[in-house]
């Protein structure tokens, strides 16, 4: 897919999300606020499962009509322990996750990735109740910076995945080190 087509697809899906939010807002069930950005110094374990975290912080009875992705200083009402970003100018680098919005067809969570003050990626996780397809959408890989990827904890790693090593290269591989440590 060309980058233009990709951008169009992203915009189209945002449009759909916008509709979802609109619908839900009309029902007075939406709470949208941006969580503070997580930075490299955040421990990965705090942020292990975005799915679970998102649904945990969802609050369907707190009403707010903020429009999350576009407001840097708006969306001041918080829900379920989430707070809005206080940045007023350009965005601070990090990954911003909106609180989960529930609507009649399921729930929506938006994640915005900011690098060098600009938005480099937007991902939406749409969970429609009882729909297997929704898991696939939820797992979609989105463009991001290396720094946004969770770091390996290291000590609880049991095995290593990487490009195939030869029998000889195994001897100097991380997997070899792990096997010897366990032996």
């Amino acid at each position, binding site marked *: 897919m060309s980058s233009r087509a990709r951008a169009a697809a992203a915009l189209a899906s945002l449009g759909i999300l916008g509709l979802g939010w609109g619908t839900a807002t009309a029902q007075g069930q939406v709470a949208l606020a941006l969580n503070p950005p997580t930075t490299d110094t955040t421990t990965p374990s705090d942020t292990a499962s975005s799915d679970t975290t998102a649904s945990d912080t969802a609050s369907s009875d707190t009403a707010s009509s903020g429009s999350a992705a576009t407001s840097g200083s708006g969306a001041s009402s918080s829900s379920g322990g989430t707070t809005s970003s206080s940045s007023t100018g350009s965005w601070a680098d*990090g990954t911003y996750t909106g609180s989960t919005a529930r609507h009649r067809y399921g729930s929506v969570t938006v994640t915005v990735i900011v690098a060098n003050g600009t938005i480099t990626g937007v991902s939406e996780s749409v969970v429609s109740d009882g729909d297997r397809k929704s898991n696939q959408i939820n797992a979609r890989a989105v463009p991001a910076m290396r720094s946004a990827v969770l770091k390996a904890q290291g000590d609880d790693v049991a095995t290593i*995945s990487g490009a195939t090593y030869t*029998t000889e290269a195994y001897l100097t591989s991380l997997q070899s080190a792990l096997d010897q440590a366990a032996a």
Partner: protein
Amino acid sequence: MGAPFVFAAMGTVISLHSARPVPRATQDAVLTAFATLEDRFSLWRPDTEAARFARGELALPETTEAFRQVYDEAVTWRLATGGAFTPHRPDGVVDLSGIVKAIALRDAGAVLRAEGLTDWCLNAGGDVVASGHRASGEPWVVGIVDPLDRSQLFTEFQMGPERWAVATSGTAERGEHVWRLGADDTFVQVTVCARDIVTADVLATAILAGGPEALARAQELDDIDVLACSAGERVWASAVFLAA
């Protein structure tokens, strides 16, 4: 955790970690799962069925049922991925090694389950399939190599329901058996986490070869998590890999 069972096959090294000791007979059965496929599909040995087929000494109808099953599976994946994964080398030779190692892992997993082992992690040259938990009760965690520094881990992935397989394809791969589709060189390393190892392995290869277009297609095809790395600062990552 006891000592892992480590052996060489298919030009690489296989490591089996298990929460419980693996009986000798079960170790042998795992070895056999790899050896059986290697005996039929190795192109490094002139006497195998695959080598004879590659040289044109055997036509497809003359091959064994076991050979055609793997060939069919590879061709089915070629169609599903729009050619991004293919068993056909640019020089016309049919090379099934891109899928055979994953099938061996799948077979070995079936052997372990049949022997009543429920908690293990099996790694063949960087492709991993697991079941259950570690002896400590913790999940199996797979470290993913940093493509920019292979002596370091980039991130990690936790095995669990619907995600028992992790495969990584990279341009550092042995024998360069990933043939790029067109000239897309967006990715230098692609990791796919899926329900089963053949899906993970094939789609990792397809995405590495076919770039972002193949990535989009692969995610239409199946429920997978992906971490695709460029040679620079950009990555394409499923939510599970991102700080949220």
